């Protein structure tokens, strides 16, 4: 059965500035239930009606947060999640993706899963939407630039997809690649970055239950600026690890090159786990600003998912392997 994932570290809502499109607990449960129903239908082999969105959060009546929800972490507004983005394929300004990503053709879309696997396969996006258990996951998203959000994603665990293609014993890493199509992604013509965008995970990180491939947020199909139609979400790593608009997933034996690690290796390590004790030359990693709030809040080890993921790095020097 699908489940709603809550971060293990709770933040008292009293610390958080109320935001405009806040879901009341009740509405949120309704949404989760709707998502669960969709997922259950999908699990039974019933395809959910395509293009039928769940209730639009911004259309939901705005009511004050439930006072009983003291331990509940508040969501970043749908508007902020969809207008304040880093997606350099569309420009370097935070507003550029929302402005310029409309040209991106997300249908038809296929994802090639290949490399050190027994069952290489090219998936149509529709098969990924209907073929795997879709869940609601509420995750913190911590950008390396010192800001963060709380986002309700829809998606499915990457482990399901990887199991389906059967990685061989030699497969140690997973390499992800974003679409390269400069005519639709104008900033790909800028030569300052080694396009296409690439990211990578160690296989055990990729198989972890927190790691998902997302197809939607706030009950809506992903918008291009958020990485439509399929993106990675790895909530304990800095946001740039969560690669967007994926077209290739390759199982490999060696640690893959990643765009940011290639561009500035001393600043962006392969792991890039959220870690308040490993400073960055440009932004504070000790504290962060939650979008929608003034001021700063302390950054949590592994972005608050320490209980879940610290075991992946047991015995490793996290300062050397940043």
């Amino acid at each position, binding site marked *: 059965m699908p489940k709603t994932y809550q971060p293990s570290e709770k933040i008292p809502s009293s610390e958080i500035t109320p935001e405009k499109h806040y879901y009341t607990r009740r509405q949120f449960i309704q949404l989760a239930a709707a998502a669960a129903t969709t997922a259950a239908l999908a699990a039974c082999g019933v395809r959910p009606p395509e293009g039928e969105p769940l209730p639009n959060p911004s259309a939901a009546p705005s009511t004050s947060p439930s006072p009983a929800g003291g331990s509940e972490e508040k969501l970043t507004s749908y*508007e902020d999640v969809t207008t*304040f983005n880093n997606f350099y394929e569309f420009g370097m300004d*935070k507003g550029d993706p929302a402005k310029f990503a409309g040209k991106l053709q997300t249908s038809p879309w296929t994802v090639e899963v290949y490399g050190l696997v027994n069952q290489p396969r090219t998936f149509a996006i529709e098969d990924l939407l209907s073929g795997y258990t879709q869940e609601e996951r509420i995750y913190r998203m911590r950008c390396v630039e010192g800001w963060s959000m709380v986002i309700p994603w829809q998606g499915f665990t990457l482990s399901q997809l990887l199991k389906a293609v059967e990685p061989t014993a030699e497969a140690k890493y997973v390499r992800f690649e974003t679409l390269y199509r400069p005519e639709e992604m104008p900033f790909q013509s800028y030569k300052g970055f080694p396009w296409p965008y690439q990211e990578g995970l160690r296989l055990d990180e990729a198989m972890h239950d927190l790691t998902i491939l997302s197809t939607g947020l706030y009950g809506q199909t992903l918008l291009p600026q958020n990485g439509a139609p399929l993106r990675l979400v790895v909530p304990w790593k800095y946001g740039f690890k969560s690669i967007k608009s994926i077209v290739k997933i390759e199982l490999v034996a060696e640690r893959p090159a990643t765009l940011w690690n290639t561009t*500035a290796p001393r600043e962006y390590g392969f792991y890039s786990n959220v870690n308040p004790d490993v400073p960055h*030359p440009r932004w504070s990693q*000790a504290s962060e*600003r939650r979008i929608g709030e003034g001021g*700063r809040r302390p950054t949590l080890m592994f972005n608050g998912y320490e209980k879940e993921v610290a075991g992946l790095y047991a015995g490793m020097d996290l300062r050397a392997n940043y």
Partner: protein
Amino acid sequence: MKAWPYLRAAAHVGALLPLLLLIFDALRDNLTANPIQAATQRSGTAALVLLLISLACTPLYTITGYADFSRLRRPLGLYAFLYALVHLSIFVVLDYAFAWDLILPELAQKRYLIAGLGAFAILLALAATSFTLTMKALGKHWKRLHRLVYAAAGLVVLHVAWAEKGNLSTLSGDILKPALALAVLLVLLGLRLPPIRRRLTALRRTPPRRVIRT
């Protein structure tokens, strides 16, 4: 017709415009989802641009011979300082809310902050000695002190280059803004080199027709 009053008015209006727009956008809640960051970046950009424009006054005078350009140097430099002050105040007051336990470790770790603070310290010293009275009191030392503006400009370019997500030496990442600022600064400094300056002055003083060789 006397152009100076118009030139002066245009300089004041132009220099205050970024601040007014910033306040206007802040009041309308139109500063992106991360308003503190947007305000920090906009005030910083205004400081950089005004500093470069104030450094353009002398070359403009050299090229045109129009002395009023020199009279804009002081007010534009002071506006650059004003924006630097706003920029730093947003960082300390709005962003970090005077949390020195957070600010000081950042300052110790981050070279872009050290460069920025160095530039601010210079601009503060120059602003504090910009009065006609202090100018006279300092005598010949005043000019020497105020040559530090070149160091401040260099530090500001470093501050931007190190704060942006790119690397100027390898021409990778986000380098458009610092590269542009560096190019403008180098041109403005180049125009001050004595041989180039003499050439420009000579060009201006000699009407082109008389240059024809006999």
